[in-house]
């Protein structure tokens, strides 16, 4: 698997642009996850037989397994690598991925997201409306955020109150001024104040949100909140001194007149041929199973996997047992069955 990518040119074998090496996309075609004839609402024709040939020649035959087993292996290893990357930005930063909803975007995100979630112990997956062009849509629909940080290395104790208060107030004033300059009024602004804390002599800190201003008697409760957060992450408590590393203020400006993409709905077919069926392999044990394929525009308010949801921008893969609900904003919310 990798590290070389087929890129957009020549791309996966099934694009028919001269790529002969098997890609993850080809594996997804072989397994039935992707439409065997066309992607992106018919703007990209694909040839499933080229995927089969590439997987068979380069993966299945050398390993002495059949094409489906090889494709599933390709997919599993790709999933494992992605799960590692998710761990790198959760566990390695001191947060537990199980506390989160996995948000899947990009053309392939919704193709893999439910598998990744299951691997990471995540129960909820959210596939935003326009997931395949998520970043571009988001740019037009987002708020403005300013993050201001000021180093303030010092032991956490009562004597620090005036300095902490001054630093947080200063950053907040700076954040408000910056937001005002961008045209936000005071009632469009939201401010979050944090203190980054760690045990003395450590190298990695946790940001703890402080509510209200820093008053006398602040240190003990703040220390306690740090200990609670630390114990949640690392599962032990230490008795050592706690030190402040930095203060930070997040200023958000809620923009008026943003792009409201909640009313956008995509479709792979323009409303024709909204429901069909194809053979999809979700697990080695169960083999290929007949799986309904439904156009995004025809998805009911609630449906149960196995199910493939096709749209112009992506393909959502809903594994057996998972429940998908389309919310009023056009997002797909998926709840995986089983283990917490």
């Amino acid at each position: 698997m990798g590290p070389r990518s087929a890129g957009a040119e020549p791309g996966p074998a099934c694009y028919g642009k001269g790529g002969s090496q098997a890609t993850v996309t080809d594996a997804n075609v072989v397994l039935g996850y992707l439409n065997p004839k066309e992607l992106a609402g018919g703007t990209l024709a694909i040839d499933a037989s080229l995927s089969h040939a590439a997987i068979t020649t380069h993966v299945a035959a050398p390993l002495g397994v059949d094409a489906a087993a090889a494709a599933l292996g390709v997919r599993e290893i790709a999933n494992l690598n992605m799960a590692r990357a998710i761990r790198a930005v959760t566990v390695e930063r001191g947060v537990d991925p199980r506390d989160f909803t996995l948000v899947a975007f990009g053309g392939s995100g919704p193709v893999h997201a439910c598998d990744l979630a299951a691997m990471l112990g995540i129960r909820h997956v959210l596939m935003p409306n326009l997931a395949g062009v998520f970043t571009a849509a988001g740019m037009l629909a987002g708020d403005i955020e300013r993050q201001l940080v000021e180093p303030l290395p010092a032991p956490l104790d009562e004597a620090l109150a005036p300095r902490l208060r001054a630093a947080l107030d200063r950053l907040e004033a700076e954040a408000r001024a910056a937001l005002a300059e961008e045209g936000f009024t005071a009632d469009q602004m939201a401010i979050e104040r944090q203190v980054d804390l760690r045990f003395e002599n450590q190298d990695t800190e946790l940001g703890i949100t402080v509510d209200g201003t820093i008053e006398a008697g602040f240190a003990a409760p703040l220390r306690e909140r740090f200990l609670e957060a630390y114990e949640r992450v690392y599962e032990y408590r230490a008795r050592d001194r706690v030190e402040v590393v930095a203060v930070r203020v997040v200023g958000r400006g809620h923009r008026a007149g943003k792009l409201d993409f909640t009313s956008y709905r995509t479709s792979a077919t323009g409303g024709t041929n909204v429901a069909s069926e194809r053979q999809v392999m979700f697990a080695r044990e169960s083999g290929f199973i007949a799986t309904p394929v439904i156009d995004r525009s025809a998805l009911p308010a609630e449906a149960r996997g196995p199910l493939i949801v096709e749209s112009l921008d992506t393909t959502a893969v809903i594994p057996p047992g998972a429940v998908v609900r389309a919310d009023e904003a056009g997002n797909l919310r998926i709840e995986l069955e089983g283990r917490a």
Partner: protein
Amino acid sequence: MTTGDASPFADPITFAVIKNAFDTIVDEMAYNVMRTARSHIVREVLDYSTTLCDRHGRIVAQAKTVALHLGAVPDAIAAVQAAFGNDFAPGDVVIMNDPYEGGMHLPDIFMFKPVFFQDRLQGFTVVVAHHCDMGGRVPGSNASDSTEIFQEGFRVPPLKLYERGEPNKTLFRLFEKNVRVPDLVIGDLLSQYATCRMGERQFLRLFERYGAATVESYIEGLLDYAETMTRREIEAWPDGTYSFTDHIDGDGFSEAPIPIKATITVKGGHLEVDFEGSAPQVKGAINSTLSFVKSASYLSVRCVMDSDAPNNAGVFRCIDVKAPPGSMLNPRLPAAVAARALTGYRIVDTMLGCLAQIVPAKVMAAGEGGNTVVCLGGYDKATGEPFILVDMINGAWGGRVDQDGIEGSPTRRRTCPLPVETLERAIPCASRLATRQDSCGAGKWRANSA
């Protein structure tokens, strides 16, 4: 799902998935130490290692940490098993550092957490960390001029630091009383503990996902696979006996060169390494336990291997290492051993000297001879508080077979020198980090500046 079949080739894909999962677990453990440790030597110099053993104590996966530690884990865990047999319960944690009972040198504390799945011992999560002080004559407990282990600090045979989840208060109190900076030492012990538990949870998740029979059979398969790959590679080497002798300049008491002699016998996919002919144990603290000699030997062989065989006990099966009892490479009590790292580096040099005769195209020129450990310690004048700082200054690699050596990187291990900014914040002194002009070796492919 395949069950009960030890062949990794029965289902190559699950095999790859489980293999990757093991690698992920040990690497995540390594990050966990970095985030929770207190001392500079652990959290910034990165002198620690994480690994996973199966229920027999065999290494299943090694994190990308200090390989020189990990090759010594088999002897360490054997000492733990000798001390406790099967007397382990969920929640137990065993530590030890005694070089004469499974350890390497006193600052390196091995921590093992037995892992149980459905009431059955299934393995151990392991964290080895170089602690910044273990008491003894000098701050950092790493003097090269000690002459007895008793001068070097606090010796801990295999003991339970936690018993069924309850801390062993006696042992914690003894640490507090025997080291100069108990906050840092106990802080680092807790970091090891938290990491062992974190690794345990992840290890158990595999058992929950695949079932014990499958995981056990894939562990067997993984070890066999590493052994097969290693043997296949060694089979391509010319059979024969090859010797090389290198020297250490002195032991701090005598300036007479101290010989280290390795003889490698290559025979049908198997290596025998014999250090017969090396110096008798010396007065200074550069004697090296046999476990560390094995580790340095495994590392050297690994350096010249092409294959990406997994770093597990299967590789070790292909390499036997021995050294005469009472020699510097297999010392008897009470020889001092604290500065044995230096000897370990020279063992690697000696081994590579041998290997250069076997696979000349794979061996780079001799490098800086290993990094230099600097221990600074004392008492802050203003507060009377003790401070200790252990750093490792890197030299550079020798020229490689087809390119220059790398500068500022240790040849024999994967540690980082402390950033100057950290140093200056940590201790009351100013410092400068620079390479030394013209310290590189000339040649078509140059050694780099140290």
